[in-house]
């Protein structure tokens, strides 16, 4: 029962993350949204892993730890890129680029 609750909460986080990623323009918010999405996935992974009553299954835990490491490094890369984008374009967003440098049909 609790497993299902956590799994549903995880799904909710995923949906929230997706929403944030598509709606927010600020890159920091987008990166946060990706992290929320990631946390949701990890929550689903852990909560669905174990069988009720059995000993905790180590495999999902190992996966989530690895996943968190990956997410941290990805976030670090994302933050650096965000700063560079902000420095180069003057604003921490993806669009609103001046016309001449904009890729056509983008």
């Amino acid at each position, binding site marked *: 029962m609790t497993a299902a609750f956590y799994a549903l909460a995880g799904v909710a986080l995923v949906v929230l993350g997706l929403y944030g990623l598509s709606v927010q323009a600020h890159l920091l918010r987008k990166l946060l949204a990706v992290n929320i999405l990631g946390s949701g996935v990890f929550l*689903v*992974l852990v909560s669905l*892993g174990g069988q009720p009553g059995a000993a905790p299954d180590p495999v999902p835990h190992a996966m989530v730890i690895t*996943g968190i490491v990956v997410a941290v490094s*990805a976030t670090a*890369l994302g933050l650096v890129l965000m700063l560079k984008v902000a420095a180069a374009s003057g604003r921490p967003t993806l669009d609103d680029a001046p016309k001449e440098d904009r*890729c*056509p049909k983008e």
Partner: protein
Amino acid sequence: MPEGVSLSALAALPWDAVLILLPLTGAVAAGLWPRSARPIGLLVSAGGIPILVGLGTAVAGTDGLHHAVGGWGAPLGIELRADALSLVFLATTALVGLGVALYADSYFEPTLARWFWPLWLFLLGALNALFLSADLFNLYVTLELMGLAAVALTALGGGRAALTGAMRYLLATLLGSLVYLLGVALLYHATGTLDFGLLGQRLEAGPASRTALGLMGAGLALKTALFPFHFWLPPAHASAPAPVSALLSALVVKASFYILVRLWLELFAPLAATAATGQVLGLLGMAAILWGSWQALRQPRVKLLVAYSTVAQIGYLFLAFPLLSAAGLPDAAAWRAVLWLVLAHALAKAAMFLAAGNLLRFGGHDRITDLDCVAQRLPLTVAAFALAGVSIAGLPPTGGFIGKWLLLEAALLQGRWDLVTVMLLGGLLAAGYVFKVVGHFFTPAATRHEAQRVPARMEWTALGLAVLALLLGLAPGILLPWFDSAVVMPMAGARQ
């Protein structure tokens, strides 16, 4: 047979682990000692070929090698697997990688080369690891490693277009991987395993496996830039430095496609309930061909045109999904054609991007209508672009033609006129956008300007890759049996 002894000794070596560890070690070494980065990078890129030959001899005649790293097998350890299917992708990576590395050596100034070599070797290690992984979670990790290296390479040139392109790419690739991982979580819940072999035995048709397939398929389609998830690809591929664009278009998008092929052939296709998913993927593939080609045709710049061409060519790879044999299993002939196209496209597309890089270096721009008598002044680059373009358009006598012929034949035998029509139309559009550029190679520009010298090696590597794409079309019979087993073996494993 006298060589029997030495062959079995070769087979005993852990080629697969070497193929992963050598680039990763090289990446660290190149990062630590920037002054030696160049020889390390070139050596490791070239080393892939002999190692692959060793692995190939070991795999030949078997139905795949399994290797538990450090003696830890599934579920907790890392298990590697090499079979004909992984070899197709590994060989593509080794060939294109070597060509691009030789090119990049002349392309980058020292300040950028310092970063290029470690990142490229990191990417190479991640790609090799991905093609050798035997369980779903390792695939996720390698997918992420590859994505991060690719994003960093994209941003290498600096400049706003490259940085925003890389940022968009990062967000797309993270989203794709996480959605894939969600699917993995569901599968694990349903079966209690992540190993391909065990999954094949335990997976059953049902809502859980269908949802998992949908999630994993969507995530991987996003990373493969299948229409309509292609939005991130043109800005990233067009603004990255030329050798990086070549790597991204030729190899990186193929890696997520490889996972999709594995999942489809080994796990999902035998479940009868997935036919609808196959049809959807086929439809998206057709849309990608038409939309990507059409967009390519209207691009004003060479690199953007080549990038949209990748969007279109990825569409062809998805045309095998809706084709099923009489028994409801994947159509082996169609898949063989698709794998052939993977190799042909990788060689030709890398050549095209490298040629585009030469044009950019030469004239300082890549606006198509302002190309200035390049056919007369850069004949090798022009030959590379044109030859590669001919293969992309699927015209004989090139590798692209063979792939398209095989795919057309498979589609026709099933009476799929929609696929046939789209393929033919796509070929025509591809010829259109290729020769739109080639036509302007000959004519002078309205405003003439100073040209920069292009190092001979940059011209020759582009031409070399294009010639490989051409050679692929001259004697396909030599390689086809290998592609046959690359398709048949995973499917046979799945049915056991």
